[in-house]
């Protein structure tokens, strides 16, 4: 019942949004849906709801973890959105001298509706235990989020939307091929029908044909990896995450990439149960390292701060894949913990970037100076976010990265450890250079008098709270979170 | 001995009927009266009685060209099987000799065209050779598909049904026949590759090459063209309709009927299609090669 409500509430509210004319009512529906979704997710921690539809939808520990992240992020984004959408012009135009900001916006009802359907699709991805439904839900997230990217209507966001739509659809089609390969692996010898529910597959996993299973995993890696942002299938990510409105970027980077990672983890679970974990872990670690290196190359010298954040997402997704790929209890635990930390931090950073974009009307780092004097709250958020995302103590990201790297050393992967460390250093240097220069310096006056920009509470409070959580997690890990993380890493085949 | 004689004489006599059939079909489609069915025989008779005119810029190459062309086509006839009977001179690997004899003929005709020193014939010769690159590729590929299936590199070995364990499925035979047909259209200068009736000089391929020949030389060239049509037609027919039973007269009758039916089809194709743009002809032939590769895959996958 709880699970059904988790999916149905956003769906119903989303369809209601398309029919509602009044803007204020639309925003109210959005907030109500976000709050109720968060409440239901919180209660799932206490109640541990059983599966429905014969086990097609169920909440295991991995799912609970990602559900909480998604719900929390959506809550933060929707409160931020209240303020953002109020100030963004709906049918007016704003233009700077280079003609860069000449755009229209889509109607807000459509935006809110797609946002809620996006939440519903992501929830379905997290809850589904049937691999077929998982596929359908991942494709639905692509379709629900494409109009969101195209909210600010101009040529660059259209280009980003097209790349996103095409690349992710093609990737997900390859993942469908992986689904079929898996089905062949299960039935080619026995010719008996096999249930595609995860638990059943895992129990039958030793009877799967190895060649077909490996082919299936490769297809899943390429397909869901494209959605997750693993290089070399990541090329849509910088464009889509930088061109969409900031709250959408926060959700894309923080929640959607996690959902794709979850889909990949389900495939990994099957490989582990079939005894092919060495194969799948090797591939995951390889793609993870490659993504980190590619991201580091593009972060150094990056001039656009939203693209910088997007490439940072690629790097962190690579780190997650690497953590799971290394194996061993510590790294997998660290990777899952890092998923939590990264999502919260990246969302906070993107929300802050929205404020910067609206104030300075430019996405170039060089054009933004003097955040600490002009917009102190956002500037503080920006600097704190920088330290959080690059893994500085006492933030939680430090702990999680440390765990992943320790695990890599313990597993004897010295070369990969070395590459990781180099990449992390390079990324820190690149990001700090770009982002700290934005905070410092004198801002260029655009009007008479030295006035601080008006910073509404809602524009920085969600981000601030998210970073506070990350800080808290870094200093003290609560027992209930620790237990869920342990269960989740056990389910991924990590030895305790 | 008699067999050798009939093997050559029969096509020599019957082949000139084929262009007549094609022209008559085209005329019917166009609502015209059209030339006689036996027109080519009358043309050959007329040309043999005429004298030849040779330009002062030509050398012995020009005089040799048509003769070698005709001779090479005749030699190919001796390698071609018919129904259930092996060719008079079959041996393992003769399919390569088959293609190369045809190539030799083409080489001599194009050399004769270049020998005239006229840029117009040279243009025709260059186009002819350019498209021959692709048509020979397709031709070789499809022959190799059939040969690999039969395990035997002799043309007679390929087409004798029941030879070895090779009996390609219907799909493979249909695809091979399609490729042979496309090669036929290309090699015999038929639409959509080349318009045999065009009087626009810039669009000619074959016609411009042989423009300077006259008298018996021209007769040999026309006769050799008809024989080439016969050869390729026989290949198409034997892939689709492998005739095994019946004595020699029964098989001969069925095969002749099939070849004339194929000539009718060529006539229909010519009437229905327009000529391809010159740059699309290599694409057309590469498509035929790709179909040959698919046919190979299908024959392996049975």
């Amino acid at each position, binding site marked *: 019942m709880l699970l059904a409500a988790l999916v149905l509430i956003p769906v119903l509210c989303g369809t209601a949004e398309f029919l509602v004319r009044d803007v204020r009512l639309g925003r109210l529906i959005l907030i109500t849906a976000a709050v109720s979704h968060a409440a239901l997710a919180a209660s799932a921690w206490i109640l541990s709801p059983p599966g429905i539809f014969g086990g097609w939808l169920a909440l295991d520990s991995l799912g609970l973890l990602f559900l909480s992240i998604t719900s929390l992020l959506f809550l933060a984004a929707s409160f931020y959105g209240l303020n953002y959408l109020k100030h963004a012009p709906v049918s007016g135009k704003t233009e700077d001298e280079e003609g860069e900001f000449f755009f229209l916006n889509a109607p807000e009802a459509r935006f809110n509706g797609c946002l809620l359907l996006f939440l519903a699709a992501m929830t379905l991805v997290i809850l589904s235990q*049937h691999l077929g439904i998982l596929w*359908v839900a991942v494709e639905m997230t*692509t379709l629900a989020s494409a109009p969101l990217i195209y909210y600010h209507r101009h040529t660059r966001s*259209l280009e980003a939307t097209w790349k996103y739509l095409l690349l992710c659809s093609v990737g997900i089609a390859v993942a469908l*091929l992986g689904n079929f390969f898996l*089905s062949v692996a299960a*039935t*080619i010898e026995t010719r008996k029908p096999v249930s595609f529910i995860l638990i059943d597959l895992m129990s039958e996993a030793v009877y799967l044909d190895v060649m077909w299973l490996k082919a299936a995993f490769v297809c899943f890696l390429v397909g869901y990896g494209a959605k997750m942002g693993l290089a070399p299938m990541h090329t849509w990510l910088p464009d889509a995450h930088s061109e969409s409105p900031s709250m959408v970027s926060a959700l894309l980077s923080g929640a959607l990439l996690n959902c794709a990672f979850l889909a990949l983890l389900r495939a990994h679970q099957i490989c582990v149960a079939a005894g092919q974990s060495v194969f799948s872990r090797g591939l995951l670690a390889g793609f993870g390292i490659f993504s980190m290196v590619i991201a580091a190359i593009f972060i150094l010298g990056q001039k656009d701060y939203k693209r910088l954040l997007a490439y940072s997402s690629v790097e962190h997704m690579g780190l997650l894949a690497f953590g799971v790929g290394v194996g061993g209890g510590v790294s997998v635990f660290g990777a899952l913990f890092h998923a939590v930390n990264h999502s919260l931090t990246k969302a906070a950073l993107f929300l802050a970037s929205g404020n910067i974009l609206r104030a300075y009307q430019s996405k170039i780092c060089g054009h933004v100076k003097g955040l600490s004097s002009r917009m102190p709250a956002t500037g503080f958020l920006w600097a704190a976010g920088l330290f959080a995302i690059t893994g500085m103590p006492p933030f939680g990201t430090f702990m999680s990265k440390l765990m992943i790297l320790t695990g890599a050393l313990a597993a004897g992967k010295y070369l990969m450890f070395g590459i990781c460390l180099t990449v992390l250093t390079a990324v820190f240097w690149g990001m700090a250079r770009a982002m700290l220069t934005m905070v410092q310096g004198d801002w260029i006056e655009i009007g008479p008098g030295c006035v601080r920009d008006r910073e509404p509470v809602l524009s920085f409070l969600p981000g601030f709270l998210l970073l506070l959580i990350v800080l808290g997690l870094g200093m003290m890990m609560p027992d209930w979170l620790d237990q869920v993380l342990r269960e989740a890493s056990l389910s991924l085949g990590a030895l305790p | 001995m008699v067999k050798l004689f009939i093997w050559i004489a029969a096509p020599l006599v019957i082949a000139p009927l084929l262009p007549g059939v094609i022209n008559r079909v085209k005329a019917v489609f166009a609502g015209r009266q059209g030339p006689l069915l036996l027109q080519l025989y009358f043309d050959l008779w007329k040309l043999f009685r005429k004298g030849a005119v040779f330009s002062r810029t030509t050398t012995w190459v020009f005089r040799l060209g048509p003769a070698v062309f005709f001779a090479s086509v005749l030699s190919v006839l001796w390698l071609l099987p018919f129904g259930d009977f092996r060719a008079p001179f079959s041996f393992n690997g003769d399919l390569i000799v088959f293609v190369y004899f045809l190539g030799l003929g083409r080489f001599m005709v194009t050399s004769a065209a270049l020998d005239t020193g006229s840029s117009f014939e040279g243009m025709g010769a260059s186009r002819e050779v350019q498209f021959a690159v692709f048509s020979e590729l397709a031709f070789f590929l499809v022959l190799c598909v059939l040969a690999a299936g039969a395990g035997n590199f002799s043309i007679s070995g390929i087409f004798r049904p029941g030879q070895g364990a090779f009996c390609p499925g219907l799909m493979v035979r249909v695809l091979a026949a399609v490729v042979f047909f496309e090669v036929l259209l290309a090699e015999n200068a038929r639409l959509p590759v080349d318009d045999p009736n065009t009087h626009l000089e810039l669009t000619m391929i074959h016609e411009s090459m042989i423009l300077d020949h006259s008298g018996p030389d021209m007769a040999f060239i026309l006769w050799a063209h008809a024989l080439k049509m016969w050869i390729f037609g026989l290949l198409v027919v034997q892939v689709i309709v492998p005739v095994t039973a019946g004595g020699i007269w029964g098989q001969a009758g069925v095969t002749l009927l099939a070849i004339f039916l194929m000539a009718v089809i060529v006539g229909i194709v010519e009437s229905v299609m327009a000529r391809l743009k010159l740059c*699309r002809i290599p694409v057309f032939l590469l498509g035929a090669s790709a179909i040959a590769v698919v046919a190979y895959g*299908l024959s392996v996958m049975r």
Partner: protein
Amino acid sequence: MIHLIWVLLLLSGLLLLGSSRMMHCLRIVAAQGILVGLLAVFQAECPGLRVFLLSATVIALKGFVFPWLVSRAIRQTGTSREVEPFVGYGASYVCGAVFFMAAMELAKRLLIPYHGVSPLPVTAGLFLAMVGLFIIVSRRKAVTQVLGYLTLENGIYAFGLSMAYEEPLLVELGVLLDVFAAVFVMGIIVFHIQREFDHMDTGRLTALRD
């Protein structure tokens, strides 16, 4: 009969590679959709209501609705009906032959221990998927990229119908619905692209780069 359908699908993939007219490509993709739907009927071991319902849905969607959506996009944008390739048609045919051989090799390796299983569905399905990917990569216009995506989906779906065991009807319909929504959204975006940029050449969508 199944053999014939697969061979026709193979040939349709080859034809798609060399075709320079957009409406021609569209009709080939529509024919592919109808063939895939027929495959659903002939492939089933015990034909019943479920099989006919699925087959009818596939034929309706892949054979008529998707091509109609794409042709609507072509008509509304008023783009020229010529496919503009990065890779020429002759080279595309050569690539097609290479893809076919690669698909055959993959099928052979995957099916080594299973002699009773015909490699044709695996080969043809993988070949069609590779052709679809190639069309997405090697053609300029956004509309032809949608056609390539449809071909990719046709190949993968046909493979699934043949080789994979029966999925629940809900999942199959979900897959079809997803592809429908994807093509629908793609059609809308293509229209917006034409309106914003005044061209559909994805090779020129290079404003976002590093």
